[in-house]
């Protein structure tokens, strides 16, 4: 074993030590070769491409070769871009070789600030340009990524400012844990958490407010980044990439590089955008039948769960009806302004930027105000040392309204059409209610009341920064240190007015909280580089990473307001006040070694080994080793550089990739190993064990990740094609599962369970037309992912997420054989032959409280098509079309509209019908079951609508084609610009977002999330209940550079 180890270490060292001295020759063309940093380059191969004679530069970078004028000379050196030069009639030929690292298109940032040559990469790593993101003018830049990258899914939780977006790469691998990728900005991880409402304190009365990540949305914090500051986004989904970031990157990583100052004359840029948003998709609400039951008028007809019911007679002919929904949504106006200053010289540069966003929502009292200040600077301390640093300060203020069941959107749908919802306040300031009752809790809030009186708000202050120090003490040694800070504090409240449906029982309820987050991390890395025998370049790096993340949530609640309208915890009755503190700290240590062997720019082999320590595995009582190991191996092979394949007219570039990696993942929650005692508020107080049983036996979960693929460029590189196939197998899944109470707890983090994700991702890029005055670029992204639960932890029958239980019995639940995106719901009873069983007394199907799978929310495939047309270099039109095929969406809104008789699908209620099935009369399983013959006219029997539909009937297989964004921009021609001295560059643009959608979905918007992004597993995406659709928006603006 030791021998093998020794060999393992000796091998790269050997390669490093060996080095071939260059032999110089003298002929008639000569010159020196320098690298882009000005240093002379020994050992560069100089080839006369005509005669095929070659030589090498000497220690001073000097060469001399036989050549005649007009011959072409080639200069090659590993790690540098090949240069070709036509020999002039006379004079020296001095060449500057550009490091492949510095050639923008060939370089990609992967690990903590590590730049890699794209040729080396053995995995698909698509990139998105910052300007493409910024031009969509989205508040939350994640929404701009949709469709631009294969294998990326973004689900927004609503169309309001500050709404959170859930992002998943490849597929959900974890049944209950976090499936969102890690965000790394300039080598430093940044927090993307939303607030988990479970840290808040519910109201004392069960009829009042409870918190389960449903009734309010909290921005996912990565949205704090101003899209204008982004230079480039790299999406790392592959195995090796996840191995780079350990536990954190097990669901992929999104690596963001921010804009840096460019050397040269000081530049000032300013741009702005003014946006109008409008809701254009509305539910189809019937306007024929009035409130009532079984055809009889009753203005009090009501469902305690969903609101007014419309099973009465037709409205009288002269009844004035109000389009409450149209009236309710407003066209909103938003604006943003961005200013940046940059300057620099060869040694130093800096950039300062300021962004201001004022985004107003289509619902009254919603909005997001955000101010972003950022400064970044970099300088060379001396010949061998560089330092760069950037700091951002973000102020964000988000006004919100309640969300989900029982709030304005659902109440708007069930609000009586013959009453104008705009009159929501009585003359004495109390809430106007329709039902004849004094109990405010028996009627849902008027939608206007809800958004005007039940306010909530979050204010965030965030400071993030990094310092990046790099030194090259030796030619072959680089030392890098990165220190990162991410610090924010959010202060928020959620309130229900004393006259509101949910505030009545408690006479007003306010929940306030302060969330503080602090992450400090540091990285130290040594990289050894050596090229030997001119063809082998070796890179060995060893790194040490340490991180400490602390989160604290100070929550308070109070009830019984003294002043109905005053918003403060001080306005509540002291005995109703309660406080709760939730803190957690997670520390991580990672040691990793990475070795890359490149052969002649053609073949690269990459190996990495990581040992990670994570405090969530540590215990104060049990002897736990909080460390675990994983690693990767990969190969990238640029076969088109082989002799014979080189300079092929059709295939210009071809690379094959193969990689395999394992990655470990510690428990995502802290404090689950040792017993957890929770404070008690019962008589006598004290402590008792938490609902989560401790589990000292918890192990890290492991993901085995295999990817194979290739990149191909055809026809003078005008067409490129990138394909990846992957298998991702996660075993020992850590799941917080409910269990038999015989365990002594209700839930427990347990290991076990295997989830497999398989998929294919393709990116096609083409310069379809390349003419002098017209360019057409097109990018097509395609992905398909299947996730399958192969085994459940401890062979438990199922896992479900109770937060997703927002409508009826529908919930996110997985079991063996299902996808992680599986939904279940109640079904109807059937006989052995599978026929529907019908009650002989009601003529309606019989429900069983057994859950059946109602579908998988994972799409069959997704496609993004990005087109960019440029006319006369000045006029550009680009748009992003997003296509999704298949995958179910549960249309909870429609289910509610059927149950309440507001859906247009209930208009045929006068039509008699017999439900197809057999009667449950004892003969149902005999050879001759009795066919149902009970005729129902729903108009007279509205129990039909309660009983005739199972939840699965509202699971729709959804396809869509949506115009995510479209931009038309016009740059003022240079000749005009040159006439004046103020502008250097100026352009105007119009951008439309979510302009239209073609879909078979019967609801408003299938791209919805019933919860907020902090729910784990598949979360609430694909459950459409109570979230408003994305409005369409039009932006106008200018961009100018001074």
């Amino acid at each position: 074993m030791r021998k093998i180890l020794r060999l393992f270490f000796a091998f790269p060292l050997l390669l490093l030590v060996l080095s071939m001295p260059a032999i110089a020759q003298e002929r008639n063309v000569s010159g020196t070769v320098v690298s882009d940093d000005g240093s002379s380059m020994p050992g560069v191969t100089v080839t006369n491409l005509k005669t095929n004679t070659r030589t090498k530069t000497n220690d001073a970078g000097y060469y001399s070769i036989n050549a005649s004028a007009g011959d072409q000379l080639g200069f090659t050196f590993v790690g540098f871009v090949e240069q070709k030069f036509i020999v002039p009639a006379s004079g020296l030929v001095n060449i500057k070789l550009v490091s492949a690292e510095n050639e923008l298109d060939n370089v990609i940032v992967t690990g903590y600030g590590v730049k890699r040559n794209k040729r080396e990469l053995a995995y698909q790593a698509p990139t998105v340009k910052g300007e493409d993101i910024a031009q969509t003018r989205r508040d939350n830049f994640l929404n701009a990524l949709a469709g631009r990258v294969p294998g990326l899914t973004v689900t927004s939780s609503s169309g309001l400012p500050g709404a959170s977006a859930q992002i998943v790469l490849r597929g959900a691998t974890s049944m209950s844990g976090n499936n969102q990728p890690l965000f790394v900005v300039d080598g430093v991880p940044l927090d993307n958490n939303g607030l988990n409402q479970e840290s808040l304190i519910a109201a004392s009365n069960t009829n009042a407010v409870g918190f389960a990540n449903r009734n309010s949305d909290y921005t996912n914090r990565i949205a704090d980044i101003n899209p204008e500051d982004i230079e480039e986004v790299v999406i790392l989904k592959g195995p090796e990439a996840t191995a780079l970031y350990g536990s954190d990157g097990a669901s992929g990583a999104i690596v963001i590089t921010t804009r840096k100052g460019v050397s040269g004359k000081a530049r000032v840029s300013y741009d702005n955008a003014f946006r109008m948003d409008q809701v254009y998709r509305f539910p189809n609400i019937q306007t024929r039948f009035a409130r009532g039951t079984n055809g009889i008028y009753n203005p009090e007809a009501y469902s305690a769960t969903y609101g007014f019911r419309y099973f009465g007679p037709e409205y009288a002919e002269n009844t004035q009806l109000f389009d409450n929904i149209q009236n309710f949504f407003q066209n909103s106006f938003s604006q943003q302004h961005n200013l940046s200053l940059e300057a620099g010289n060869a040694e130093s540069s800096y950039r300062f930027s300021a962004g201001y966003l004022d985004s107003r929502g289509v619902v009254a009292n919603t909005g997001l105000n955000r101010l972003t200040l950022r400064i970044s600077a970099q300088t060379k301390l001396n010949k061998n040392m560089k330092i760069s640093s950037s700091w951002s300060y973000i102020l964000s203020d988000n006004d919100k309204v309640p969300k989900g069941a029982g709030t304005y959107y659902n109440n708007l749908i069930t609000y009586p059409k013959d009453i104008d919802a705009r009159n929501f306040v009585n003359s004495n300031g109390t809430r106007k209610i329709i039902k004849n009752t004094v109990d405010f809790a028996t009627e849902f809030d008027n939608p206007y009341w809800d958004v005007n009186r039940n306010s909530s708000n979050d204010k965030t202050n965030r400071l993030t920064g990094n310092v990046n120090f790099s030194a090259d003490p030796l030619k072959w040694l680089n030392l890098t240190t990165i220190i990162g800070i991410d610090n924010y504090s959010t202060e928020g409240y959620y309130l229900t007015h004393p006259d509101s449906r949910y505030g009545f029982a408690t006479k007003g309820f306010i929940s306030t909280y302060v969330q503080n987050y602090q992450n400090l991390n540091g990285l130290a890395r040594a990289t050894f580089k050596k090229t030997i025998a001119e063809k082998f370049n070796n890179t060995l790096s060893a790194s040490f990473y340490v991180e400490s993340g602390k989160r604290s949530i100070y929550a308070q609640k109070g009830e019984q307001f003294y002043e109905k309208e005053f918003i403060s915890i001080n306005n509540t009755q002291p005995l109703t006040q309660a406080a709760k503190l939730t803190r957690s700290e997670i520390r991580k240590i990672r040691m990793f070694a990475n070795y890359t062997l490149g052969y002649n720019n053609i073949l690269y082999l990459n190996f990495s080994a990581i040992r990670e320590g994570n405090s969530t595995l540590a215990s104060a009582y049990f002897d736990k080793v909080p460390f675990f190991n994983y690693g990767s191996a990969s190969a990238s092979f640029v076969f088109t550089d082989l002799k014979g394949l080189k300079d092929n007219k059709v295939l210009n570039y071809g690379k094959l990739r193969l990689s395999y990696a394992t990655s470990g993942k510690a428990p995502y929650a802290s404090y689950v190993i040792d017993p957890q005692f929770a404070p008690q508020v019962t008589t006598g107080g004290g402590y008792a064990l938490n609902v989560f049983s401790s589990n000292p036996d918890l192990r890290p979960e492991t993901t085995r990740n295999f990817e194979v693929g290739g990149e191909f460029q055809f026809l003078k590189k005008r067409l490129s094609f990138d394909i990846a196939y992957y298998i991702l197998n996660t075993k020992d899944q850590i799941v917080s599962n409910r269990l038999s109470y015989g365990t002594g707890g209700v839930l427990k983090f347990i290991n076990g369970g295997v989830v497999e994700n398989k998929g294919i991702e393709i990116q096609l890029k083409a310069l379809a037309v390349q003419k002098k005055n017209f360019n057409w670029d097109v990018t097509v992204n395609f992905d398909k992912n299947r996730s399958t639960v192969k085994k459940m932890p401890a062979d438990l029958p199922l896992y479900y997420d109770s937060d997703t239980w927002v409508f009826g019995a529908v919930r996110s639940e997985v079991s063996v054989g299902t996808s992680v995106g599986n939904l279940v719901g109640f079904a109807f009873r059937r006989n052995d032959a599978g026929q529907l069983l019908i009650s002989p007394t009601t003529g309606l199907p019989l429900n069983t409280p057994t859950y059946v799978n109602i579908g998988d929310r994972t799409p069959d495939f997704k496609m993004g098509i990005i087109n960019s047309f440029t006319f006369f270099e000045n006029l550009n039109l680009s748009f992003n079309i997003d296509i999704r095929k298949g995958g179910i969406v549960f249309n909870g809104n429609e289910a509610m509209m059927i149950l309440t008789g507001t859906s247009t699908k209930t208009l045929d209620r006068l039509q008699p019908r017999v439900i197809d099935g057999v009667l449950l009369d004892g003969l149902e399983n005999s050879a001759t079951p009795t066919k149902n013959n009970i005729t129902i006219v729903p108009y007279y029997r509205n129990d039909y609508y309660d009983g005739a539909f199972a939840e699965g009937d509202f699971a729709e297989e959804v396809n869509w084609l949506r115009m995510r964004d479209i931009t038309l921009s016009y740059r003022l021609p240079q000749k005009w610009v040159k006439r004046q001295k103020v502008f250097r560059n100026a352009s105007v643009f119009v951008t439309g977002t979510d302009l239209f959608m073609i879909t078979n979905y019967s609801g408003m918007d299938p791209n919805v999330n019933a919860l907020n992004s902090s729910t784990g597993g598949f979360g609430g995406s694909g459950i459409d209940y109570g979230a408003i659709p994305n409005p369409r928006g039009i932006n106008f603006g200018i961009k100018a550079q001074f």
Partner: protein
Amino acid sequence: MKHTYKIVLLAAFFSMAMSSCKKYLNINSDPDTPQNPSNSSVFPAMLSGIPRGVQYDARYMSKYVQNLLSSANGNNDTWDRHGYLAGSDASGDIWRQTYFGLGNNLNYIIDNGIQKGQSDYVGASLVLKALMFQMTTDYHGDIIFREAFKENTYYFKYDSQLVVYQGVDSICRLADAYLTKSASETLTLGIGDFVYNGDISKWKKLNYAILAKNFHRFTNKAGMYNADSVIKYCDLAMGSVNDDFVIPFDATKNDDASFYGTYRNNLTSFRQSNFIVKLLDGTSLTGSSTPATIDPRISHMLSASQDLTNGNGGYRGVDPAIGDPFSALTGVYTVGSANWINARKRVGIVWGDSIYANPSAANFSATTTGKYLFKDKAVMPVISYTEMQFIKAEAAFRKGDFGTAHTAYLAGINGHFDFINRNYGAVRGNSTIFNGSPISTASRNSYLASANVRSQAQLRITDIMLQKYIALWGWGFLETWVDLRRFHYLDLDPATGQQVYVNFAFPTSFFPNNLNKPVQRVRPRFNSEYIWNLEELKRFGGDQTDYHTYEMWFSKP
């Protein structure tokens, strides 16, 4: 070989680095809650966890035993009709408390106490453990017992009632040993024990009371029943109402107020049954209700309607699944109109006389509102002296020792008067439960002299059981249900040829799944067992829709 020293150095360096890394990572302890709290911090939560299961589940069980029933006219209520709610955790709270609420917490206190030499906590926790398991098997029948709390186990085998009763017996004996042992130690139980304030002798009495009940479960088991043991442990148990195991409430917020109080407002749709009204107004015990036969306890326990003209002072009750015929008359009516007259005849709500709605929901401003045990700050009794006396009376009666039986019977009745009259101020400042003023000695004596109370010669098992029913009404739901099931609800008293539970009637129809059988047990908690331990349930029919009508082991001969 010359590299050996380098490797050793390297290894030494790494192991040092690793151990300091491990230290750096060793912060996985919640800073906001202690992970090894003292027993005195955990014990209070155990005490307040005891009434929760019964109070929550009595929303259903009280209907089975007809303490309280559904109010609405023609309600056809599932539980009134001995049914259950499939796919729901309703009626699963005793289960929750036994395994989760107290469960491992008691194990923690016991282990911790043994380590630290706190035998008082160990003993008291064993008593509570015995109590919880006994309640759970009385309620569900077969339950998880031997495998409960087993580490690394996700599916649990159930044990039979016999195994659980024997197990409870062992736990009680162990508890007694620790309580005895504590005499030689410094006692700290008083810090956490807000019921008995650390009085070991009272804990011992409670432990004997559990043993008495345990022996008493075997009345129908020929060859296993031993009346002398029952009597012995009854005598060792509570000596007066001051020994009663009653859990107090602080009533400062939702979670520390009684589940039955006005603040928490959980009994809005419940009404007193006709069965209890007839017991207290003399109908069932004397054959008629006259002023002389009306029990003086009636005005303290039950609620009178506004209309007092029904002959017993306005006390009305409801029958199962039928409810109050006038329940819908909630409006304001012209004085003297038919609706006005009928509205005044509605059955009173448990929280007071002459009222039909909660006078103080979600409001502590009047902590004295409510009636009897249905107050925010009224204690929840768990085992009482009175109960012990009736158990003793039954045992002695079965043995043929009618003298002892009669003495215990009278002590039981007197004990319940004392229970009502007791000043609970000494128990963490809890409210009194009598209505206005305590029952006077004169009215007690006149009751004892009335036809309701029998002489030794006249004493029948019926009298013992019915007086016990009265004494346990409103809190001893589970013991009452055990009694009713032991007597198969409708068993006849050989002495009278009439039902022991005079005037007890089943609902006109049972819940459909019952297949015309009365309820005998409650299904285990849905979200614990029907989802996560279903295979085991199937072994003994627990998955059957009529499993709740399977007769209990203890009531079978």
